[in-house]
């Protein structure tokens, strides 16, 4: 079963791999941030051919036949990679009819695969694209179970093929919220999780056509969906915040050694940073949450990311949903640089902060070396900025995905054009379009 799933995933990848409209592209004389964690490089050049990066750095020559864009005074970077988002799942979050992020009345949970619901024409995708976001992972949200279902990797290109990898991960919520979903306690969540993995194992071992015996709680579809989690071919994203809960999650590895864990949230991660690092489990977190919003977030601090990074944890900025819009990932990252000037706080260098919204989330999402970096062989996702991309005053001037220059208009940009002035003397505003 798991092999079949992987095969489908692979074919989907190859189908959308080669964009037909990709044009060769070169940007010269720009300040370059490659996304690899290093400091920005002045007077650099980026070359993209046939949708892939072929060179990025100082002293790179522009091949003959490629018209170069002069990037003097500008910055060039890989596209932003937004990990764990709700992009494409709802038109308006609170308009239930438009919202496919969760299904609390469905009998299914782990089997839910968001990929067919994703809408490439979604406005939030267009708005994020305008902000320089070129790749993302989209996660399902918990309905009635600790298992939310399976998320996907997408690109934000203005074309119908947004899906890069369906069923890229399974999401499970533990901790406080997981306990409530499981029936009322963390204890129940762990019993449910263990039982689910047992059923997954049993279903996977069934001969074709055989029926399951009694003592089953999960639907067949849900049990089957968990097989790739159990054998480690599909990462298991675990929503968890409290230090003790993180330890419990890491402890699952001794029982289920193949689990490919990713921690999502990890508000108190800094308190167990050495253990997370030793377990080689990466973290995706929203870094500026510094309030004890719940009893599992008492240790919240903006220094969480910096301290985990210092301990050797691979940390990405993510969890973009609701008011935390993917296009403002640079503001999140920039604030971590700001911490380096606050006595006692632990922040990130500029290069580390920029990597936390590009290469690191790409690596955690299985796109290491392919997305979130400007390096030979990577996808041709390039953003040209009017200034330091982490600074509040900066914005993309142009965005390429797979070497294709992207339109940057959307509902918002059309509104701003219509209402740039308020003159209605000759015709109503409805005629301005």
């Amino acid at each position: 079963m798991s092999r079949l799933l992987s095969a489908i995933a692979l074919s989907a990848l190859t189908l959308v791999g080669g964009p037909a409209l990709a044009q060769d592209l070169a940007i010269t004389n720009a300040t370059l941030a490659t996304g690899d964690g290093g400091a920005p490089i002045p007077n650099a050049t980026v070359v993209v051919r046939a949708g892939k990066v072929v060179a990025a750095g100082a002293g790179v020559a522009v091949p003959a036949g490629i018209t170069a864009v002069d990037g003097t005074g500008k910055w060039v970077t890989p596209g932003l990679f937004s990990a764990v988002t709700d992009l494409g799942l709802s038109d308006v979050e609170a308009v239930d009819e438009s919202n496919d992020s969760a299904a609390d009345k469905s009998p299914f949970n782990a089997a839910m695969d968001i990929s067919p619901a994703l809408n490439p024409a979604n406005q939030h995708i267009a708005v994020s694209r305008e902000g320089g976001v070129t790749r993302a992972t989209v996660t399902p949200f918990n309905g009635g179970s600790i298992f939310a279902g399976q998320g996907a990797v997408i690109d934000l290109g203005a074309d119908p093929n947004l899906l890069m990898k369906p069923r890229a991960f399974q999401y499970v919520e533990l901790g406080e919220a997981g306990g409530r979903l499981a029936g009322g306690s963390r204890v129940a969540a762990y019993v449910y999780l263990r039982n689910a993995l047992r059923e997954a194992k049993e279903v996977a071992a069934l001969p074709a056509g055989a029926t399951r015996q009694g003592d089953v709680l999960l639907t067949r579809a849900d049990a089957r969906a968990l097989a790739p989690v159990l054998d480690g071919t599909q990462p298991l994203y675990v929503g968890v915040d409290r230090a003790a809960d993180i330890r419990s999650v890491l402890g699952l590895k001794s029982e289920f050694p193949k689990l490919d864990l990713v921690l999502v949230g990890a508000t108190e991660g800094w308190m167990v940073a050495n253990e997370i690092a030793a377990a080689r489990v990466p973290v995706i977190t929203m870094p500026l949450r510094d309030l004890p919003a719940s009893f599992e977030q008492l240790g919240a601090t903006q220094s969480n990311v910096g301290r985990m990074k210092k301990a050797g944890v691979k940390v990405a900025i993510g969890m973009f949903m609701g008011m935390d819009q993917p296009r403002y990932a640079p503001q999140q990252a920039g604030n971590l640089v700001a911490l380096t000037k606050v006595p006692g706080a632990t922040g990130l260098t500029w290069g580390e902060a920029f990597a936390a919204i590009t290469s690191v989330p790409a690596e955690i999402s299985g796109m290491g070396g392919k997305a979130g970096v400007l390096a030979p062989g990577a996808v041709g996702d390039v953003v040209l900025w009017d200034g330091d991309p982490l600074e509040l005053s900066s914005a993309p001037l142009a965005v390429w995905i797979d070497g294709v220059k992207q339109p940057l208009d959307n509902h918002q940009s059309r509104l701003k054009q219509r209402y740039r002035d308020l003159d209605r003397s000759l015709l109503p505003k409805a005629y301005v379009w």
Partner: protein
Amino acid sequence: MRVSPALRRVSSLVVLGLALSLAPGADAKKKDKDAKQAEAPYASTYRPYPGRPTALVGATVYDGRGGRIDNGTVLFENGKLVAIGGADLAIPAGYDRIDGAGKFVTPGVIDIHSHLGVYPSPSVDANSDGNEMTSPTTPDVWAEHSVWPQDPGFGRAMMHGGVTSLQILPGSGNLIGGRAVTLKNVPSLTVQGMKFPGAPYSLKMACGENPKRVYGEKGQKPSTRMGNFSVDRQAWIDAKKYKDGDHADRDLGKDTLEGVLKGEVLVQNHCYRADEMAQVLDMAKEMGYKVTAFHHAVEAYKIADLLKANDVCAAIWADWYGFKMESYDGIPENAALVANQGACVVIHSDDENGIQRLNQEAAKAQADGRRIGIDIPDAQVVGWFTYNAAKAMGIGDKTGSLEANKMADVVLWNGSPLSVYSRPEKVWVDGALLYDADDPKRKPVSDFELGQPGEGDVK
């Protein structure tokens, strides 16, 4: 992924509304013939903490009212600003001198729209005290009776956001949500110890989706926008009758509405859509009151001329949009387009995290304006989160700008407050140093955080 906090807030409104659908209506009527008792109940007990005569020298100074002084000097003593000037301003004897070279000074940051204390951290149901959703009009409730002074959010707002004053509003589940309260951001055992001396009261009102959803789902009025207006208008008609009456039967809610009709209580009106704001302005005209600010106002840019003509502020986020139907047309250029018409812009938070970065939100909104050719100087943008907020809260004569004799509510930033790389370095409230990044002990730690993981951490 668990459901986002934002959606949880929206949906919890619904859930709570349903849960309380059988609860009795608010008992608004209370007999109290002792009118004198009502003069200033729950009065402020706040007294400024001691400070030292201080001279901030060499910094770039934004005065909050559009002024900028490079290499400026700011003097304060006994809780009051003494003088603001250039490098040539004489520093009186006995003043502590703080070198601000390369740094920036602004007035204390002010948030006109906060729910700190009424929706505090931890945000558990037991602490959820912001929305009295048992009747669509509850002008009788006062936010100050819900504020939990130990909310750790107050301290974060000071340390990371430089917030020195804030208005705590009831939520938007009701058409008329109750009285707001304006606080100094000083740690206190009691809310009285935080109340901003001499600040007028505000009334929180809401139009649009929230009230009609909360009460519509209970099968009661209002369930539509026309129902919203019907309930509002009748409340004002009743209030006018009360105002003209003998007050023999004191009505707590109508006391508040009467205050609005007399111009003593300001109106802070949650309203998203342009067409609805225009309707509210006509209702205010019809009933004889003034709207001071439209809050959230994601479509303010469509009617910026109307807001200007009616002297109403738009208190807004920089760029929240699309999370509910009435926010669908929100755009990041909102603030700049409103300012471009000469109307009043206030950047607000409505959020315990956002309140820590009002300066950054303003900076983003400024940049979005610049990209469509609306160039608003930094010094004016600083006013979006200082003086304009103070003015719309009725405390513009006391704080919100760096002017002699005003309260010495001052922030020293370690870089431009409009840069993502900057943070408050020192924060003074009435001349008392209440946050100092260089002194680990000079920061507030709420009772709730004592003995917990991370007590006294940098946060």
